[in-house]
């Protein structure tokens, strides 16, 4: 978690999924756009909603609620897509409500092992305790691991014709 305090100065971009506030390092966030039309891509995992056209760039979009095995919810006016940057790969994540930038002190950050039965431990880098609430800090590179995104059905034999 050094990166959060060294490069991002403890700043998180936080958002709501349901009632829980989550945060990502500010440096990982590129921009935020309102919910927009998503074109589905076949043979992808259920949390991969498809791709969007962001000013001419095709960007894959993941639904965090589905990824974290939360119940589906219809998009509202507050639903938005945070475009995150990993090297050269941009990915969008759908969140229920964008809260904003919050700075946390290193002392209030704790690396906690298992937070919830549904969210895998590697998705979470820890927990930040603020005066009135707790923010779950995500390890985004694990959440967005590319290997999990393509889901090829196994009932298709390769046959030479």
């Amino acid at each position, binding site marked *: 978690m050094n990166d959060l305090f060294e490069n991002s100065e403890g700043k998180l971009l936080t958002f709501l999924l349901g009632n829980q506030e989550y945060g990502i390092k500010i440096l990982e966030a590129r921009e935020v756009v309102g919910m927009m039309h998503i074109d589905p891509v*076949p043979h992808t995992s259920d949390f*991969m909603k498809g791709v969007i*056209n962001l000013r*001419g760039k*095709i960007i894959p979009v993941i639904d965090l609620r589905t990824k974290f095995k939360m119940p589906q919810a219809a998009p509202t006016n507050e639903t938005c897509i945070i475009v995150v940057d990993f090297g050269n*790969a*941009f*990915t969008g994540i759908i969140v229920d409500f964008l809260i904003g930038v919050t700075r946390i002190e290193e002392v209030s950050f704790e690396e906690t092992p298992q937070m919830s039965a549904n969210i895998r431990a590697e998705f979470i880098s820890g927990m930040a305790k603020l005066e009135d609430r707790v923010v779950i800090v995500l390890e985004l590179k694990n959440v967005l691991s590319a290997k999990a995104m393509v889901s090829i059905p196994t009932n*298709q034999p390769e046959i030479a014709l």
Partner: protein
Amino acid sequence: MYDVQDRESECLILAGEVIPIMRLHEFFDVEADVMFPEEAIIVDVKYGDKKYGLMVDEQLHRQQIVVKNLGETFVNLPGITGGTILGDGRVGLILDPETLIHRSHNINMTIN
């Protein structure tokens, strides 16, 4: 005129040639509007010296497009090699017939 043998090996007889039909909606596991070849559009593709028919709901346009990379996320996606931005802003997916044909079901070409 066409000759449907069984689900695994549908064929179309076109200008004296027997052309196997591939149901794209089955390959991609999506819902199609048209479930019967006689009501669908069959797009003829040629792979090497063999011809195949891809069954689609509707042919929309024939146009030149700019191919965009879909990125690392989708690099292992079978049958899809890229994307493009369509006129209405939506993203179109570019198919690769070669992979589709390699991955399709075994085709029996017995003719009655």
